[in-house]
């Protein structure tokens, strides 16, 4: 009897990643809160926030990798889902300010008072309750992804066309959120948060907890994503990526699969945004800018597309490099980032993950739609 091949849920790379993540998740806040300030072991507050931010980016990159690495959907609009999740959390935090705002209005956030608004718009209702806001963190990006995906996948918009319209989507949202009368604070966005669930957002302990939650969310989403891609559903996703019409002719409804994974991924991005906002203390429309979304894709590509943990690692490494360089040589950073885009696509198709797995890259690059178009045209 032959042994049927089984995909392990986590795999070696996944286990190492989770162990490292757990270590970082516990060590950083512990060293922040309990080591004596000034000692070599002490992690300063700003560092906790900075790494927490990286973890949120890592979760965003994981979400991008889930759709791009496994299903071939290159979304240039995942920043929009991230920002929407962030806005949902930001709205909760705005409502928690209460009468401590500059204008002291117990009901309306400052910018609404400033705009002479008399009452809270309907879509702000309910955001004073944390569970509701948390639900919206998932629901709003999820619903947008579902509607957008339903339209796009049903009409079989694929490849670069899909990339371009996802970019147009986030661009449209960028323009919309810049408008004051949208009711999301316009240009300035939402900021000046005071507390979350009754704890002051600036306090070290709150920050440590938020940091820990980010790590937890990253780990949890990683396991969920691994569960998805190691199931038969994941195999079908890869089949769609490599040979979409073959998958269709086997009887799989490709659009349903894409819709499922796109929506799940958008929700993960939303969660990342929701954790990001209380840590950095602001959310504004620039989070919707198409540049952000494309940058996320390069974190994923740099870390290693189609490995999930590689994507998360890529986000952390690139962002750490960004923090370092923008402090050291601000002008050089765009050269480095631009160069990264070129070098990764030309010379590192498997990204960092490829280096770590000892250049064992058996699978050939997937046959893309365009390659098939050209071969068909040649016939």
């Amino acid at each position, binding site marked *: 009897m032959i042994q049927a091949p089984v995909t392990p849920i986590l795999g070696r790379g996944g286990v190492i990643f989770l162990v490292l993540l757990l270590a970082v998740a516990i060590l950083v806040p512990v060293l922040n809160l309990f080591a004596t300030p000034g000692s070599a072991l002490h992690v300063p507050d700003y560092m906790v926030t900075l790494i927490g931010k990286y973890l949120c980016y890592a979760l965003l990159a994981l979400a991008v990798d889930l759709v791009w690495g496994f299903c071939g959907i290159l979304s240039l609009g995942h920043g929009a889902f991230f920002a929407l999740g962030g806005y949902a959390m930001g709205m909760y935090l705005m409502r928690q300010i209460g009468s401590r705002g500059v204008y002291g209005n117990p009901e309306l956030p400052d910018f609404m008072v400033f705009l002479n608004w008399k009452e809270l718009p309907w879509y702000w209702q309910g955001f004073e309750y944390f569970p509701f806001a948390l639900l919206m963190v998932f629901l709003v990006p999820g619903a947008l992804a579902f509607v957008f995906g339903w339209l796009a996948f049903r009409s079989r918009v694929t490849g670069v066309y899909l*990339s*371009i319209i996802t*970019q147009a989507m986030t661009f449209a949202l960028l323009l919309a959120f810049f408008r004051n009368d949208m009711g999301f604070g316009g240009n300035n966005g939402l900021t000046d948060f005071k507390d979350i669930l009754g704890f002051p957002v600036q306090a070290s302990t709150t920050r440590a907890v938020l940091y820990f939650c980010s790590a937890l969310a990253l780990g949890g989403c990683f396991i969920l994503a691994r569960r998805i891609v190691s199931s038969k559903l994941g195999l079908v996703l890869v089949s769609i990526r490599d040979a979409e019409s073959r998958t269709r002719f086997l009887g799989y409804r490709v659009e349903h699969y894409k819709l499922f994974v796109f929506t799940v991924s958008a929700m993960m991005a939303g969660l990342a945004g929701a954790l990001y906002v209380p840590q950095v203390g602001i959310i504004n429309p620039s989070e919707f800018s198409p540049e952000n979304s494309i940058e996320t894709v390069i974190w994923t590509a740099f870390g290693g597309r189609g490995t999930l943990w590689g994507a998360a690692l890529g986000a952390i490494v690139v962002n750490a490099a960004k923090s370092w360089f923008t402090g050291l040589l601000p002008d050089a950073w765009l050269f480095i980032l631009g160069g990264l885009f070129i070098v990764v696509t030309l010379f590192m198709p498997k990204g960092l993950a490829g280096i770590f797995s000892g250049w064992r890259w058996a699978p050939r690059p997937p046959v893309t739609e365009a390659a098939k178009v050209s071969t068909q045209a040649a016939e």
Partner: protein
Amino acid sequence: MRSLAAILMLLLMTCGVWASDAAQLINALAPGDFKERETAISALAASGAEEAAPVLQALSGGNLYVRKSDGKVFIAETRGDALALTDPVGMAAAGEGAKADIEKIKINNNLRRLISNALGGLTMVSTDPAARRKAALSVLKSGDPAALPSLEKAISDEKDAGLAALMKQAAAAATLRSDRSDAEKMAAIGVLKERTDRDTAALLTAFAATTDSGLKDAATAAAQSIESTLARWAAVQNVWYGLSLSSVLLLAAIGLAITFGVMGVINMAHGEMVMLGAYTTYVVQGMVAQHAPGLLPYALLLAVPAAFLVSGSVGVALERCVIRFLYGRPLETLLATWGVSLVLQQAVRSIFGPTNKEVTTPAWMSGSVDVGGVLSLTMNRIVILAFALAVFAGLMMLMKASTAGLQMRAVTQNRPMANAMGIRSNWVDALTFGLGSGIAGLAGVALSQIDNVSPNLGQSYIIDSFLVVVFGGVGNLWGTLAGAVTLGVANKFLEPFAGAVLGKILILIAVILFIQKRPRGLFALKGRWVEA
């Protein structure tokens, strides 16, 4: 008695006015009550004396004074405790006078209106045509019947046919308010009907409300006809703005249509090629200004080939160094070229600095052309529209009629066969890409005239350009033209209703929905070779 004098003065005016008469008329402004002053103003205005205008202006502005001792009128200005006097006749300084000796000539609002109308009539006979035009327009707006006599006189004297027509319209407007016969008023309505502006329509509507006779219907109909003409012009204006935007979109997108449509390469650095073209224009202008200032008006023409060469060679280099390794992998190409765009932006920022660069508009591209008295087309937009069409036509010819175009199409359709026939497909690829980038450079020259030349210039056009290409249908230059025109005009038609930002959002959503409906664009190729 006074009115008799006025008539006398009128008679005098026709045979010329002496300075002493003018002085007399001016001095008549001071005594008496408002009623008498009114007559005096009319008399002065009707005299057509050259002093009349400055004196009446001074009177209206409260700067006309009378010397109590002899009743002589002066234009005066406060200087310290005293007043600096100017003799209105000859406009000579006439020393100072103590405030106690001199009294301001008072007027009321009625008189102010009268003066302003009278001034209109006065400038009507001015030697400066611009002043006459201005005067006629002011009467046209006010429709004051008092101006009628001087207008009619002016019309008979007017040599300029266009101005005479305008004065006739002004006279017509005044006629409506006057107590002239219905026949004359009917004729006046006929004259006013020819005008296309909101004020005339309002004038006619107001007139229609004051009368019950057959004139009412005629005036209402005339007002409506003007309104509908105006609406048509508004639409024409929107179309023009739309076409102007379309020409910019076309220029930015057409190079993309070649690299994306013909070669299947997504070039996210396309916007930076545009940006390089704009900076080339800046540099060329700077060099010309330094070495051959006389040629400065033509620096823009020199910039056209220069921008094509600069952007084109960067494009060729990009194709040779990056893109050729990524053929058949469109998503990777997208990412790599995005990286290139970041590098180019930062390079330009490092060299030229982050601030906007000034590119001057040559005289032959400034100014505007009036169409129908309503629409003003700026010259630079007209030139850009013509330029865009010229580039499009040139490209069409290149693709259809030249060997290079033939080879390009051959390689696109069947690469192995083209190779077999001795076409160096590598070089065709590089040159095609160079062509697309070079055209982006041309777009940059045009954009430097209407947009800020900054490192981010290209970014603002890249998404729009992609939408144009995708909307028009990939691989079809006519589609790109149609896409640019549709999106440009639609954008400008939405703006008045939705505002610029919301209009743009609506366009984006519309295109997103459209792509779902027709994933391959407006002019898509159909057939089994399209999709795997």
